Structures are given as structure tokens and as C-alpha cells.
């Protein structure tokens, strides 16, 4: 279970388990976490906990709420986040491991009723702040009541109407999930073109997939994997050769200074120093 450690000037005052859907924080005595200091508003902030995730919301306090030094209105709490309210600090711990055990990792489960959101007894997120109130109402309603259709707003099939609108650009490049893909264990590598018009040029293999060759004639792909670089034939009647021998249907791992010949062009694969 997630918890908060309340401290001031490095002295721990208390530990609070986030076992309620809504934990309130403020100067007035009715708050779950009371901080008796004039820098703290009567109702300063609320922490909403939904299953294993917690969110903090500033309730339009006078002096504001900081998380990791930045002022926030609403924030999705991550393990070790530090909430600052005046001189008081609350450190958030959520050691509920994302993977309880390798086997159980993210086993898909059905959630049939809101586990903690019970409309009558507890107000939803930001009941005291109008903007957010509707959002939590939406969740409760969606979970408990009739669920609305959720396919994207792509234009449905309409006869006589031209096809779907141009697809919207895909999501902006979000930071990648920490994954094994570009792992630091993979050494940097490049290929240098040895013949043909582009002779002398070097191509860094910085992407997980790099295609080489001539589209429509002969194409191969070099994949960057945790255990090295591999080349695979993609299209064309002729397969590329590696050090003079023809590449088979399977991927082949590339070694330092391997010589690749594709679509009549020679190139060399090498690991960067």
C-alpha cells in the first residue's frame, strides 16, 4: 500500500497510509492529514487513490502545492515524489511493485465494479473544485453504469461520403518506456558504403530498424537487438551476401567488419570504438 511520510526540516512527524479513496490535507482539524501551520490552507490538497495509483490535487490553496519543486494543480504521484506544502514535506512511497512476481506481471483482470469509488459515501476527485468534479463523475459513471462506446472518432462508414479524413498525426514522440530495446549494453555501430555512387558515406545504426538496398529491387533490414545487430532479407529475388556467402531466409548476426553486398553495392558493418 502506498504511504506518505510527513516531515518538517528533516524531522519525521508521521506516516500516513493511503488506504482511503480520498485523503485530505489541510490546516483545519477535520483533515485526514492535519498540518497546523499558517502557510497551509484550511483545505489545502487532496490525495485520490484508485487501486494502486494515487493522484494529488491542489484545492486552490493560497500558497500552492509543489511536487519535486514544481507547482502543480493535479499530479499523478510516482514512487519517491516529494510534495511540499509550505515548510512541510510529504514523501510518497509506493512500493507495490509493478510486477508482484514475474509470473503475475500484469495479468489481465476484469474490473466489474469500481473497487473504491462509491458515489454516495465519498465525493469523487475534486468535489470542492468544480473543474475536476465532472471528470471523476465520469469515471464513476463509466465504471458502474452504462459504458459508452469508445472507439476513436474516426469517421464511420458513410455511403456516398468520401473516405475517412486524413489520419491525424500520431502521438508526439513520447519518451519511450524504459525497455530493453535501446539498452546501453548494445554497442554503437555503423555501416560504411564502399562502392557505388555513395562510396565513402557512413550510416550510423542508431535506430532499431535500418533498411538498406533499393526499394522494389533488393532490400534488407538491420535490426538492433539487445544482443547485437542482425541482418534479414526483406524483398527482392536476390538475397544479399555477407562476406561473400548468400544470406539465408533467417536473420544473421553481424560481426565487426562484416562485408555486406546488396543491390550491387558493397558496404562494411563495424562497431564504433
Amino acid at each position: 500500500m502506498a504511504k506518505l511520510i510527513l516531515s518538517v526540516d528533516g524531522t519525521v512527524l508521521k506516516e500516513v497510509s493511503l488506504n482511503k479513496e480520498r485523503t485530505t490535507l489541510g490546516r483545519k482539524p477535520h483533515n485526514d492529514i492535519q498540518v497546523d501551520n499558517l502557510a497551509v490552507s484550511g483545505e489545502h490538497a487532496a490525495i485520490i487513490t484508485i487501486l494502486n495509483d494515487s493522484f494529488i490535487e491542489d484545492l486552490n490553496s493560497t500558497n500552492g502545492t509543489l511536487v519535486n519543486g514544481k507547482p502543480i494543480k493535479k499530479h499523478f504521484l510516482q514512487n519517491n515524489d516529494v510534495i511540499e506544502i509550505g515548510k512541510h514535506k510529504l514523501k510518497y512511497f509506493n512500493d507495490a511493485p509493478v510486477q508482484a512476481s514475474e509470473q503475475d506481471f500484469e495479468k489481465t483482470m476484469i474490473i466489474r465494479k469500481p473497487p473504491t469509488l462509491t458515489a454516495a459515501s465519498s465525493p469523487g476527485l475534486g468535489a470542492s473544485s468544480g473543474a475536476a468534479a465532472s471528470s471523476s463523475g465520469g469515471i464513476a459513471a463509466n465504471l458502474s453504469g452504462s459504458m459508452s462506446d469508445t472507439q476513436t472518432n474516426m469517421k464511420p462508414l458513410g455511403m456516398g461520403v468520401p473516405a475517412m479524413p486524413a489520419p491525424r498525426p500520431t502521438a508526439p514522440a513520447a519518451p519511450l518506456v524504459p525497455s530493453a530495446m535501446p539498452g546501453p549494453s548494445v554497442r554503437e555501430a555503423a555501416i560504411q558504403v564502399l562502392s557505388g555512387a555513395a562510396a565513402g558515406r557512413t550510416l550510423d545504426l542508431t535506430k532499431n530498424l535500418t533498411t538498406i538496398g533499393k526499394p522494389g529491387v533488393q532490400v534488407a533490414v538491420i535490426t538492433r537487438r539487445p544482443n547485437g545487430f542482425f541482418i534479414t532479407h526483406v524483398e527482392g529475388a536476390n538475397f544479399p551476401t555477407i562476406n561473400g556467402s548468400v544470406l539465408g531466409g533467417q536473420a544473421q548476426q553481424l560481426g565487426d567488419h562484416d562485408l555486406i553486398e546488396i543491390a550491387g553495392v558493397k558496404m562494411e558493418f563495424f562497431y564504433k570504438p
Partner: protein
Amino acid sequence: MAIINALQIVSVTDPGRIRGHNEDCVESRPEMGVVVLADGMGGYNAGEVASGMATSLIAAGLANGWTRAALKKLDREQASAFSQQLLQAEVSKANSAIFEAAQKDPQCAGMGTTLVACLFYDNFLTVGHIGDSRLYRMRSDALEQVTRDHSLLQEQIDSGLITKEDARSSHNKNLVTRALGIDPEVETETHSYEVLEGDIYLLCSDGLNDMIEDEEIQMTLIALRSNLDLTAQQLVQAANDAGGRDNISVMLIKVVSGFGVERGVWARIMSWFK
């Protein structure tokens, strides 16, 4: 062009690197333009019972209902409406069958499955889905997610509680709000969309999109699309390289040519000879 020649279909399903067995199930009927993917859950090894029942029952049910005779008199709009009704009806039947099996056999208690199923006909597709198995479409190098998950996280994103970026680090990724076989009734979400030559459709279980980003899926589809088998294998391999923490299933459908249905008088006469 006949649907079997107009669509190139490739399926790969893989247990991943952590799980001992594969609870995903895929089935395609290329001659009908039908693809079905299910990701089972619950019970001792019962997940694959649920997903296996879902794919085989729905594919067989569509084969029974989606016939030349049934479609003969329908115009395009009617065919689209009929495809949605049929899909809903067949999913409903499969739901009852899985639910009853789960009630009878204690080993199967609590089993369920997510579902995404597509039916291609007359230059459109009808998609039905339940839970967090997805349909993506790549058109003109842009990848778009067609279905939206029936999951707690998606609802939190929709309500503005959490951003799409933050959602990546949520602890609640694995909770679906709808599944097949859990309750006596289930609501299938169905829609129909125009299909264009050159489109590539991707059906996948969450074992793919939880492990790799949409950008990487898109990059793979663009780089390798001339070799659909390799594209599917590469997607599965990338998910495994990123950890492979769940079963991974990928179905790719490439629209090689249009598959419009002729409805003129001449076409009707010709159809007598078929």
C-alpha cells in the same frame, strides 16, 4: 477482386518470454475476409480455453451467417449494417457459451477473454471489440489506433484524470472493464470504416502494445511492409526484446487491391453461373 486475393493476411502468436503458456488465440478465414484475435484470462490454464472458444465460435458463426445467399440482395449500406448485427449476434453466442462453460467446470471458473474481430467486405471493414485487444490502421505512413480499450486506464485518460504519457507508468494497466464470458451478457462495440488499397491493419493483444511504443510499431510497418511475414515476426521479436512479459499476438492484413462488390444487372446474371 475476390476478397481472398485482395487481402494478404499474416498471423503470429507467441507466449513471450515469461509466461509458460499462451492464452492468446488467433483465427483467420481469408476466403471470407474474417480475422479474430482473443486474449484469454483467468482460471488455471482456462484463459486459453476462453480465447480458443471465442475465436473458433465467432469465426464459425460468421462463416454460417455471412453467405452469398444472405448478402445477395443487400446494397453496401445494408451489408455494413448486417455485418455489425451478425458480429454482435455471434459474439453474444460465444459469450454465452464461454460463460456457461465457466459455470459448469470449476477449473474454468472466472475465465474470460478480450476480443477484436474484423470482417472485410465491399471496400469496408467492420470491427468489433471488447477489452484491450486493439485494431490499428496504417494509411499513408500514419499509424492510427482504431479501437479504444475498454479499460480502467483508458477511462482515466478519457476523463482527464491522467495523461497518455503518465499512463505508461500506471499500476492499473492490466484492468479491463469489459470481457467476453464473464457475465451472461456482453456489449460488443462495433463500427464500420472505409478501406483503401494500400492500408495495413494490425490486430494485436496487449502483449505487443504494452511492450513497444506506437512509434516503433509504425516504424516497423513502414520499413518492412513489403514483407508482411517479416513485419509480423519483427513486431513479436521487438516485444520479446523489450521484455516479452505477456503473450504476444499480431495479425496483419494488407489491402493489396480493392474488393468492391459488383451489383449491376450483369453482375447478377454472372452470379448465377458461379
